[in-house]
């Protein structure tokens, strides 16, 4: 069975909520929309205090080409434009909307009917990208890169295939798994639309073998789409990394930055994004709700929710039976790449794939001891780097060496730190080094 060739680890899967159907989460009382929910320039608010909005009304416009608009997920009145503590732990500008009823914009098609690409011959690639842009779509896997940017290859680059990331390699998370089981037809139409948008006629959907039911269902449904191939993959973290997935599915390696996946002819999108593309293009529905897995070993009822953006995480945790008494950490995202939250009132954003509640025992980091030169981190690194070295040079602020050792290639998957028997904070240090070196490179390029 296919998988990527370098490194990787296999953490305990713990897919506790895999058999829980998606539940519609209750509307919040006040929905909060941070203006910076994506990579790129933060959005600019276009509403003011006291304005009435409906579900799907644009409340903030894209702040640049690499940016995305934000749409209200609720109907009600703009309460204030203030700050909110987001997943980073810092206060960021945000729009607060007091919820009144649930009135949707008339342009949104709320019917459940499946619209296939063949039913809409008017859809040109340009129109699809335009619709995606106007729906504020960003990558739903967690990195939140605006989708329309990825669908417009830079001059000189040509897409050859679309790869859909349905591996969900993070332990615990089951949002994509449930989406495939419940919305397989819509996902496939979405993939078809993405393929049309980038003008290719080959699409792959990579699914890890720990989701046999999804592989079976998707393979059946994909019979109708001869250009879409379902690729079962061996379960290994971080297979959901863009570069790892390309290697696993089409056996091509993306060179070091500034090369991007399109340099080897691949456009990678998340399966959640494919579904959002379907809704945006066929149903005129902007991105204002998403599937969120709320899970944890001590949680009474791990669940998958269809939650409106802006819903506080605490409300979803409450719906799963409340915060357990032995909670050690609440993590936004999965256990490998997610971020420990400082505050559970953090609103659900476009990239919130999950809320993980770790108990005391799981949450505790091991005691840090000296590096024993076992090189486990080197074997685990999916980018073929030397994490122990990068961490040391970063801690010593030796940025030249860090750059020479390709620190910018790090995808921050955390495999090194996960595998380290001395519990060394490798990724913590590497991340700082990567940020600093990228800043230095940017400064040099603008000079």
């Amino acid at each position, binding site marked *: 069975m296919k998988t990527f060739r370098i490194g990787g680890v296999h953490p305990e899967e713990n897919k506790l909520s895999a058999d829980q159907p998606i539940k519609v989460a209750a509307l919040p009382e006040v929905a909060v929309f941070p203006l910076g929910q994506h990579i790129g320039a933060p959005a600019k608010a276009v509403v003011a205090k006291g304005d009435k909005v409906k579900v799907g009304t644009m409340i903030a416009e894209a702040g640049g080409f690499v940016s995305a608009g934000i749409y209200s997920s609720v109907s009600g009145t703009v309460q204030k434009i203030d700050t909110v503590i987001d997943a*980073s732990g810092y206060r960021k500008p945000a729009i607060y909307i007091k919820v009144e009823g649930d009135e949707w914009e008339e342009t949104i098609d709320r019917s459940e009917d499946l619209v296939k690409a063949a039913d809409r011959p008017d859809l040109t690639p340009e129109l699809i990208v335009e619709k995606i842009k106007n729906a504020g779509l960003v990558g739903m896997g967690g990195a939140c890169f605006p989708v329309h940017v990825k669908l417009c290859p830079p001059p000189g680059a040509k897409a050859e295939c679309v790869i859909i990331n349905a591996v969900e390699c993070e332990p615990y998370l089951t949002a994509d798994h449930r989406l495939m089981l419940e919305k397989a037809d819509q996902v496939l139409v979405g993939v078809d639309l993405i393929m049309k948008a980038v003008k290719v006629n080959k699409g792959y959907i990579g699914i890890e073998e720990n989701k046999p039911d999804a592989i079976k269902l998707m393979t059946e449904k994909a019979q109708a789409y001869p250009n879409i191939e379902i690729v079962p993959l061996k379960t290994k973290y971080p297979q959901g990394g863009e570069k790892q997935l390309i290697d696993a599915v089409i056996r091509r390696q993306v060179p070091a930055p500034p090369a991007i996946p399109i340099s080897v002819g691949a456009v990678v999108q998340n399966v959640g994004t494919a579904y959002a593309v379907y809704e945006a293009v066929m149903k005129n529905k902007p991105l204002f709700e998403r599937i969120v897995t709320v899970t944890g070993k001590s949680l009474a009822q791990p669940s998958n929710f269809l939650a409106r953006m802006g819903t506080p995480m605490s409300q979803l945790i409450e719906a799963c039976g409340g915060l357990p008494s032995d909670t050690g950490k609440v993590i936004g995202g999965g256990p490998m790449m997610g971020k420990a939250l400082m505050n559970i009132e953090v609103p659900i954003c476009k990239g919130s794939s999950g809320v993980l509640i770790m108990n005391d025992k799981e949450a505790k980091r091991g005691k840090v001891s000296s590096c024993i030169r076992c090189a486990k981190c080197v074997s685990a690194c999916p980018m073929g780097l030397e994490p122990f070295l990068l961490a040391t040079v970063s801690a010593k602020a030796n940025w030249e060496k860090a750059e020479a050792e390709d620190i910018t290639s790090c995808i921050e998957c955390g495999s090194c730190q996960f595998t380290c028997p001395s519990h060394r904070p490798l990724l*913590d*240090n590497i991340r700082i080094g990567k940020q600093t070196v990228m800043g230095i490179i940017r400064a040099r390029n603008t000079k």
Partner: protein
Amino acid sequence: MNVILIAVIVLGAIGLLASLVLFFASKKFAVHEDPRIGQVSEVLPQANCGGCGFPGCSGFAAACVKAADGGSLEGKLCPVGGQPVMEKVAAILGLEAAAAEPKVAVVRCNGSCQNRPRIVEYDGAISCRVANATGAGETACQFGCLGCGDCVAACKFDAIHMNPETGLPEVDEEKCTACGACSKACPRNIIEIRPKGRVVKGSARRVWVDCVNKDKGPVAMKACNVSCIGCGKCVKVCKFEAITLENNLAYIDPEKCKACGQCVNACNVRHAIHATWEVPVPKPKTEDAPAAAPAAPKAEAAVAEAPKPAAEETPKAEA
């Protein structure tokens, strides 16, 4: 015998030839260095801390010599050696030393364990830089000291230490050379290099706002007992227009500050202004009234720059 003799003669000849080559090379390719650079270098402390802004002591010496050719040593200061060293440098270069005020590092945060309750636990690498990037720290203040001691590690003079009771770094005024290494190491820009201030009764008097929190009043107030909430009382009371209010935070300009201590008394609710000496608290109103009257017009002018926040925040501060 013959073999030894040949060896000695051959090696001797090679040695002589090589020495001649070296001699001519050293004349031909000699790099002229101003002898004064070496002399200046010798009087510098050789800490190579970079506090002067040049790459090490020899770099600073070269810069001094270049500046001396321009006629003035203005703006050149070795923070480690201070005035005495600069005078020696000036003597070598045949100039007057520019008068420079001695400076010291100042930690602008008083968020001790008591003043600033911990709301979360940080469990990552013990480094302020990492802690700052990972989250907002262990307290609700997103601007204050993280307490991991990057500044302590950066100090080459053993002049800054963490106080385990407060969890904050403390500067040893005697040892601090104001090289600025701690200030650069701090990811939150809390440490500032400020003039030591005028000396009264054997101790230097300086005043600073002991907070860098830019949050709005209510948020800052909740995060820490001694945060600046931007109420603007100090701005009103300062007779020298030394205090400005920006982003809900007061800042005392050390160039204008005369260390009168008025602002310290004005900040009697939050106690966010720190003075290095005991500022006498004014006696009850009756005596104070005439003294305050002449200050009023000037105070109004200062407030005019930032009238809104001052007006809005004042009642909250007293509440």
